[in-house]
């Protein structure tokens, strides 16, 4: 069992958990994730390692409540325990002194990109961060990202903070400017990663994305997480999750992520009924 030693509610339905997992904390690196299972009926599902402290033996995850598993997790607080917590999984981010690195993020990834920005900064890169959200209330860990960024660009859909528009716009401006960009890293919703990759492709700037297909074991055993890269099948949990965004078959990935929407709706409905005690469901 893995005890939760801290919980923060960062936004409505976005939570931070600091979990006691000393071995995972000792082995973790930027870009890796864990797979957890909340209880004996639970699914195995992945969350990115947003931070870790080898000395304290803790691992931090940040997640959004969207379905049954994330809702189950949201019921737990300080002192509660998670049944299973396996990691660190996936290959760590490739960190080198590339020169200038642009870190683009949106959604929960504005937190999970922080260890990458930090490692890039520590490796001597100039780090430019671009963060996007629907509106200004939906930012968190902004201060941390700022700390490791030489330049910080904020975008909102509604214009309530920074530039009004999508992250692809400042990204395109940077690509067209005199600044030489050596690498772009994009983490966030698949559609955002897809369009950022399409934006950088004509400029020939290497673009790394962190894919999030559906996973089960996370060790390369089931093939559920397979993605197509230039026609070659790769398992995101062991060969990734980071890949060259210019090679990814985005439409294939987007379709596979929706494999179980019907079942997820059934499960969510049942879970809601159980919580509200409609009495019709077990």
């Amino acid at each position, binding site marked *: 069992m893995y005890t939760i030693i801290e919980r923060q509610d960062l936004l409505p339905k976005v939570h931070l958990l600091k979990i006691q997992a000393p071995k*995972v904390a000792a082995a973790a690196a930027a870009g890796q994730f864990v797979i957890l299972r909340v209880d004996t009926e639970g699914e195995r599902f992945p969350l990115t390692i947003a931070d870790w402290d080898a000395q304290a033996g803790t691992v931090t995850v940040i997640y959004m409540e969207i379905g049954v598993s994330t809702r189950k997790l949201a019921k737990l607080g300080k002192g509660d325990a998670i049944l299973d917590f396996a990691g660190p999984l996936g290959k760590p981010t490739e960190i080198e002194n590339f020169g200038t690195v642009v870190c683009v993020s949106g959604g929960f990834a504005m937190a999970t990109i922080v260890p990458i920005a930090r490692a890039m900064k520590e490796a001597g890169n100039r780090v430019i961060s671009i963060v996007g959200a629907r509106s200004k209330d939906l930012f968190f860990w902004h201060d941390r990202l700022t700390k490791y960024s030489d330049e910080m660009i904020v975008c909102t859909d509604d214009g309530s903070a920074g530039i009004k528009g999508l992250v692809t716009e400042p990204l395109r401006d940077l690509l067209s400017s005199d600044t030489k960009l050596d690498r772009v890293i994009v983490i966030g919703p698949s559609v955002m990663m897809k369009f950022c990759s399409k934006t950088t492709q004509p400029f020939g700037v290497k673009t790394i994305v962190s894919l999030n297909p559906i996973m089960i074991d996370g060790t390369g055993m089931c093939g559920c997480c397979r993605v*197509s890269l230039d026609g070659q*099948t790769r398992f995101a949990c062991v060969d990734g999750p980071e890949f060259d965004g210019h090679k990814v078959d985005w439409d294939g990935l987007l379709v596979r992520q929706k494999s179980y929407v019907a079942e997820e709706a059934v*499960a969510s409905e049942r879970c809601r009924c159980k919580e509200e005690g409609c009495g019709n469901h077990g």
Partner: protein
Amino acid sequence: MAKAGLNRIDMPKQAVAKRIQNFSEVATGYTPSDAHIEAARCLQCKKRYCVEGCPVNIDIPEFILALREGDMPEAARILKKTNSLPGVCGRVCPQETQCEQACILNKKEVPIAIGRLERFVADWEREHSAEVNLPKSLKPKSGKKAAVVGAGPAGLTASAELARLGHDVTLFESLHTAGGVLMYGIPEFRLPKDIVQGEVEYVKSLGVKIELNAVAGRLFSLDDLFKQGFQAVFLATGAGLPLFLNVQGENLNGVYSANEFLTRINLMKAHSFPEYDTPVKKGKKVAVIGGGNVAMDAARCALRLGAEEVSIIYRRSEVELPARKEEVENAREEGIKFHFLTSPVRFLANEQGKVRAMDCQKMELGEPDASGRRRPIPVDGSEFEMDIDLAIIALGTRPNPLVMQSAPDLQVNPNGTVAAGISGQTSHKAVWAGGDIVTGSDTVISAMGAAKRSALVMDEYLRSL
């Protein structure tokens, strides 16, 4: 003594109409009277052919004699002396090519149903463990530490043996449950999961510490284990990496690897969705590609999820089917269809990106290939379309490279297996390997046999330190 008939006692089974509606065990096991009649047929041969046919050399005549004489605790002790997982082996061993093939009665009539008797004794033991009083150790404590990686049959056996030989053993497993393929691959209706967990409990009772959620190659490297004070390592991570056809449309929704399909059901209990949170697709017309035990298991699971039609698509002919005869018969009885000399060329999608059909071509058999079986050759112009809404690819698996990648000095063969000698010694000092990681997909009992051989050599090594 009951009449030593020509025919052995049949295994009682659930009726077909009933069993295809549930995931409970198909073969329900001998009754005490069945077991005694079958045991009475054994000739108690001086020359123990049957024992030679068993990779872990169970004292077969002796356990059958104890059973016949009604001394069940003794029968159980004899089994456990050489086999720490008899409840598993009695169910899934391919006995017809092992102990039962070697049985002297196989020459004239029908061999003794050794596996079924083994299962009978193991099941008795589970309910009467207090009466059996097994010795927990064979040798005094050595004070030496051994690590075992992977908790499938090979890892469980190596751990049990090393613990009984007096060593301090920690078993590392990447999943949340120990058992390997016994838990995530072989379905409940052939091997109930509480039986596997019963055997895992036995291994723990010998003092083995099991660390779950421990992914070797990520959480620790091979060398880290030595840094942590382990003095010898047994690698048993199996052959879990699924192979695909590499044809168009293989990544469509509704196309599964057998490992994924079976893991969702066996390990995650998706057949009980939504009581359990993991979903699985229930097809109406299902195609399973492959002809081994894994294909039979996947097909029979798909049927139990409620499919109207399940077909096995195999590129060679019936005689080359690699699955056990008994399982092919069970599958046939249950209404699984077989398409021989047929191979998929591509999968076709509907508007939602879900598989709706599969293009196949017919094959004919040419000259024997490297495997000694006749090579299938496509027949020109034989393509046809088959409507399906679920496909399961069961082409086989390879060792998962994760552990090897973390140990560059470990020698690996071109087919991905770890290079190991007869007792499992690898190119890495103080590291042994056994089971599917060395042989590629094989059998439970050969994995266990390999583990036992390694454990004996590891014991010598540890005691020499």
